[in-house]
């Protein structure tokens, strides 16, 4: 259905405005409207009822657990994702292309399966899990370490895949210059390479954080789900939905969305300020 290409100097605004309208409509229908529905649902009985739901001790403890496990996971992910991306771009070794392909696999595995897999690997009845628990007194499954492991597995590709293209484009001339001036490996990494990668590392990490906050499938299997102890916000929301308390479900969701949004906005501002200075 190739239309005759229009002369480039005429009507150049036309595709732009069409695209703009298209993406605006798409975002509105796919994201904005559902968000408004959740928001409206959360406040349908007024602010006091909303506040009551989100400040229930059981809800607060679920939100806190979600946030700290997600944050810790994000920190680990940032470091390991950066290292992995660096290895994959800068070094050559046998099996590199296979390793590169494996990184995306977590995105294709149903997260429920991820949870089951972790229980098989680290469960209290399994060799590895039993070893950790008896030798080190360290419970993985049905405890926060299990949640962090599951989140790491699921969100690992986010950081690696945001850093990789930037690293590929990075001009190595600067590094050579630094080396010529006598800088050593670590100094080059710290002073020359890392500043260029800080932005993609941060945005990849944020993506993984946002994804982790809402994760349900794997967490419900590995967490233990005991209120006040090992129940995350998403699992608490399921409980609310199942016991016909949609208000609580929407209210908690609004809190999670707000926190994710705040983190993203805060980081963007920090970056903008840094770029100016």
């Amino acid at each position, binding site marked *: 259905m190739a239309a005759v290409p229009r002369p480039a100097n005429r009507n150049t605004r036309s595709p732009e405005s069409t695209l703009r309208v298209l993406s605006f409509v798409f975002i509105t229908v796919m994201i904005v409207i559902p968000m408004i529905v959740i928001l409206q649902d959360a406040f349908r009985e007024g602010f006091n009822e909303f506040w009551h739901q989100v400040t229930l001790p059981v809800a607060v403890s679920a939100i806190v657990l979600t946030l700290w496990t997600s944050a810790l996971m994000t920190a680990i992910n940032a470091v390991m994702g950066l290292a992995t991306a660096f290895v994959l771009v800068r070094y050559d070794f046998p099996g590199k292309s296979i390793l590169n392909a494996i990184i995306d696999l977590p995105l294709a595995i149903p997260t429920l399966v991820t949870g089951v897999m972790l229980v098989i690997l680290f469960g209290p009845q399994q060799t590895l899990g039993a070893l950790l628990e008896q030798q080190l007194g360290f419970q993985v499954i049905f405890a926060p370490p299990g949640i962090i492991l599951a989140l790491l597995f699921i969100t690992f590709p986010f950081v690696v895949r945001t850093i990789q293209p930037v690293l590929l484009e990075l001009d190595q001339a600067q590094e050579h210059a630094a080396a010529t001036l006598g800088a050593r490996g670590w100094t080059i990494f710290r002073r020359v390479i890392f500043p260029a990668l800080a932005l993609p590392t941060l945005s990849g990490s944020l993506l993984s954080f946002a994804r982790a906050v809402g994760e349900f499938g794997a967490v419900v299997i590995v967490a233990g789900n005991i209120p*006040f102890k090992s129940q995350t916000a998403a699992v608490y929301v*399921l409980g609310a939905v199942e*016991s016909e308390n949609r208000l609580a479900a929407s209210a908690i969701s609004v809190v999670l969305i707000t926190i994710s949004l705040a983190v993203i906005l805060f980081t963007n501002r920090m970056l903008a300020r840094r770029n100016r200075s």
Partner: protein
Amino acid sequence: MKQMIGKVLFAIVLSVLLAGCAANQPIDSGSSGDIHLILAAYTTPREAYGEIIPLFQAMWQEEHGQTVTFEESYQGSGAQSRAVVEGFEADVVALSLEADVTRILDAGLITHDWKSVGANGMVSDSVVALAVRPGNPLGIDDWDDLGDEGVEVLTPNPATSGGAMWNVLGLYGAALRGQVAGVPGDDPDAAREFLKSVLANVLVMDDSARDSITNFEQGIGHVAITYENEVLVGQQAGLDYELVIPRSTILIENPVAVVDEYVDEHGTREVAEALVEFLFTTEAQEIFAKYGLRSVDPDVAAATSDQYPPVPDLFTIEYFGGWPQAREDIFGESGVFNVAIQEVQGQ
């Protein structure tokens, strides 16, 4: 080429016409042809229905000369009930607890007195029981053993699982009735302390009774609070855990009902009602008993009492004043369960 297009068109028109005839058949055929019935059930009795349905089909065929085709859906009772309310047009529902039928009733889809059928609308029974490891190494033989230090207990989350509510009610009710060793009767504080001692031992709270027993089958925990029928079916499938029935426990009653709105829409009322009636026949009740469920038919129950020993102190949901009351008092925001778990976790 033209000829071929013509043939294809002819085939399409023909198939549309045929499909139209097929779709109309159940409505305008009184004594011949197929009739389609949708059954929405919870997961436990799947095997039992697998045997009962062919018997019903044969009976209907013989009496009415009509073939009944079935569409069967099995999922968690709560999810099934919500699906029906939201438009899954099941002719008959078979669920695990009354509250799930009440939800459909409240939505206006069931308009008849469903409790007038059979044994108060309840087609099968079970009791809350314990599953323990082969040989019962920890010597768990009643509720009081679940509060001992170091015992790992599995039970699902009452917020997501109707089964978990039964479990908590069985445990707490037995304590309240003075049937748990070391816990004085009629003392809500003592019963709550006992509930706390068990909750402190809970290793994982799964979404559903099924997930919980699956975790137990995978070797997690020392004891699972579950239903008698889950253990019996698991044993039939070759799993080697053992059943322990507490001295005092709660009776689980599983309702069945015709969904008026949908049978009238489908024109299937007669056959749907016949199916529900058939479930209460000796034949069908024996099949339920074969698959781990206690029969509601006194004769069948007597005949299977070897497999289903009477419980010395069996109580029902009425002990808590019925489901709505229990939901509020035990599982409400400041109900016994939520307060207990909050205290256990030191909040």
